């Protein structure tokens, strides 16, 4: 299936908000979502944005059952390790269920890693719920190290060789 990975625009915030809620439902915490597309517009597209976002988009011919062409996103921001230096934190990675298995999640993640490498980030970190086996397997397959075993969340890091390999898989612009 053809798809495109691109930087999110302000106009995408309604779709991003939709998908954030879909992810929250999956993570069994929809009541925890307190922000709407308006906060995303304000916080992601101001002079000093709090986050950056990539979108996965399909053509009209492949629209979802509900008519969406924006079918996945990766939301991330830059952080800092006082031991290692610049890092990037992948806050959300999500692909609508009907579009999974097409490499979209991998492409989104790789693109984030590529952007991070361009900014000389030495780590890509994220967290995952321990019962979320498909997600844990997905990240483990990419050489992620599980740094934390917890009652719900795992802190994950990419660095060195696993990060380089992830960058190599980034889709061409």
């Amino acid at each position: 299936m053809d798809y495109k990975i691109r930087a999110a625009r302000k106009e995408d915030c309604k779709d991003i908000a939709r998908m954030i809620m879909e992810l929250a439902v999956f993570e069994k915490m929809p009541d925890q979502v307190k922000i709407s597309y308006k906060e995303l517009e304000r916080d992601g597209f101001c002079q000093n944005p709090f986050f950056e976002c990539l979108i996965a988009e399909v053509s009209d011919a492949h629209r979802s059952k509900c008519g969406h062409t924006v079918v996945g996103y990766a939301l991330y921001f830059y952080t800092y390790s006082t031991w290692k230096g610049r890092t990037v934190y992948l806050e959300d990675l999500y692909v609508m269920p009907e579009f999974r298995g097409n490499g979209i999640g991998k492409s989104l993640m790789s693109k984030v890693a590529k952007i991070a490498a361009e900014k000389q980030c030495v780590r890509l970190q994220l967290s995952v719920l321990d019962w979320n086996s498909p997600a844990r397997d997905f990240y483990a397959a990419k050489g992620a190290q599980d740094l934390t075993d917890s009652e719900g969340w795992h802190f994950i890091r990419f660095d060195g060789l696993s990060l380089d390999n992830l960058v190599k898989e980034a889709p061409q612009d």
Partner: protein
Amino acid sequence: MEFTIRAANVDDCKDIARMITELAEYEKAIDQVRITQRDLEQDGFSKNPFFHGIIAEVPEPHKTKEGHAKVGYALYYFSYCSYRGRAVFMEDLYVMPEFRGKGIGKALMSKVAQLGLAAGCQQLNFTVLDWNKSSLDFYLNQGCTDTTAEMGYHYMCCKGEALEHLAHGQL
């Protein structure tokens, strides 16, 4: 003991690097430290900084034996929770051992909370090593919630009323 809390500037990077090393030694991870004073200068004090810092400083009569007046720091950055919006992450909080017990750590942490609230943040998050009981107790006593029980690190979140109290506790 008198002390001041102020925003870090580029000239503080030498002392911040020194204290990062001290903190890493305490956390038994000195071999993991890769960044230098120069990295801090570039990454914290350029056009799009990766972090912000605040410093705790004591006056002349209270300097350390080695002559240090900068005795504590907190390093933080803004993050984002896709469910709740703007957040602040406190990456490091450190006070030199001989200056502990004087409210400096709490003042630094409160200042971070205050700066976070002023920037519209809904959470103050950080992590702590599970064997670091004195730090864990220090944080839990501020009304924080331990949202993650882990092998080594605990993911901490200060929000709502606890965050308000922390920010208003600022000296």
